[in-house]
């Protein structure tokens, strides 16, 4: 598991009390029990932890864990490349 995926998993389990077994790539954030304020807080936590801007549509209720992971990995890769 990449550091980005680990941070996402950790936020979902520790902050939003999502069971680890439910965090599978095809699960939508909504199906994991996150309401609109939880989605806002998840985006804020990811921004704080990863140092990248997370847009509203990237943490929508219908966004899946797999989609969000890919978006975050791409953002972090771009941020790292930009910093070099």
């Amino acid at each position, binding site marked *: 598991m990449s550091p980005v995926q680990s941070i996402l998993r950790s936020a979902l389990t520790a902050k939003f009390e999502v069971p680890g077994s439910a965090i599978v790539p095809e699960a939508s954030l909504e199906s994991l029990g996150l*309401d*609109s*304020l939880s*989605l*806002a*807080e998840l*985006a*804020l936590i990811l921004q704080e932890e990863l140092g990248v801007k997370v847009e*509203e549509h990237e943490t929508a209720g219908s966004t899946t864990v797999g989609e969000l992971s890919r978006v975050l990995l791409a953002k972090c890769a771009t941020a790292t490349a930009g910093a070099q």
Partner: protein
Amino acid sequence: MRLRVSNELGSAAAVLQGLGGWVPPRVVTNEELPASWGVDDAWVRRRTGIGTRHWADADTSTGDAAERAARLALASARTPRVDAVIVATSTPDRPMPATAPQLASRLGLEGVAAWDVSAACSGFVYGLAAAAGVICAGIAERVLLVAADVYSTLIAPEDRSAGVVFADGAGAVVLRRGLSGEPGGVLGFDLGSDGTGHHLIEVAGGGALERARPRAYRPADRYFRMDGREVFQHAVTRMTESSRLLLKNVGWTAAHVDRLVAHQANARILSAVGERLDIPADRCVNHVERVGNTGAASIPLALADAAAREDLRAGQRVLITAFGAGLTWGSAALLWPELDRIAPVHDTGTSAGRSL
């Protein structure tokens, strides 16, 4: 440019002398919310942490609520006289004139300086800064600051999201000229704004823009609207950053803070700010559960309720922080003073609540 002020010990400072809070008698439980909103107690509590709120009746204006809180604060301060009256509100009784001069007259304070502060839910902290400013400049010896909002008048009838959260109330403080470092002395401020976020929380209509171009506006523009998601992130980030800056400026760490009194917007914002500041939940004052979000009034109401329950005690280090439309935010720090017993906020049926 942000405004940061930290008083030198022994210099002039605004000192808290009196405190009062008032909410309308009508308690609205989650079960009593309009059926058309389709919400139940569990949904509202989970989403907002709110169990009850108070809504004013049609005969209770912002000025009326302000007067109730003001009288309680003046009684607590044991003084009928102040040199200035400041009202912080987003729901003034009318666009002009300000609410404060009429309040001063109703209180028998003829001739004193009186003006309103418009900084939405940050209004109490901005008003506190205005009060401290006129006190430290030698313009006034004593100031009455009242934060009052009747938000129930500003929420569209069909707006469930805002309707479950926003409510009515007023809180007031009396500040006197004293010395920084003495109990009750405000030790410093951090104030800031970001006008590029003006559209995130707004009442778009009802002002000069609408009067100039009436056809560009709809009746719904007279009501409050908010981008909840963006506001959540800004509120948490701004209150956390402002608090950190102020703590550094006054020489405190999070461990020094005995009570964090943040703008009572929503229980989830309160816990998110407390977690980021590393201040445990038992040191974070929660009043939103009983009164909802009362706008500018939320902080003085929370102070009055905590003081009445003796959860706030002399000598405690208190950090207050607020965020609101504008966007605006601000924080202040003080050592809690010895005050006369504060009237219970929720005892509205007693003589204290009906002393007009």
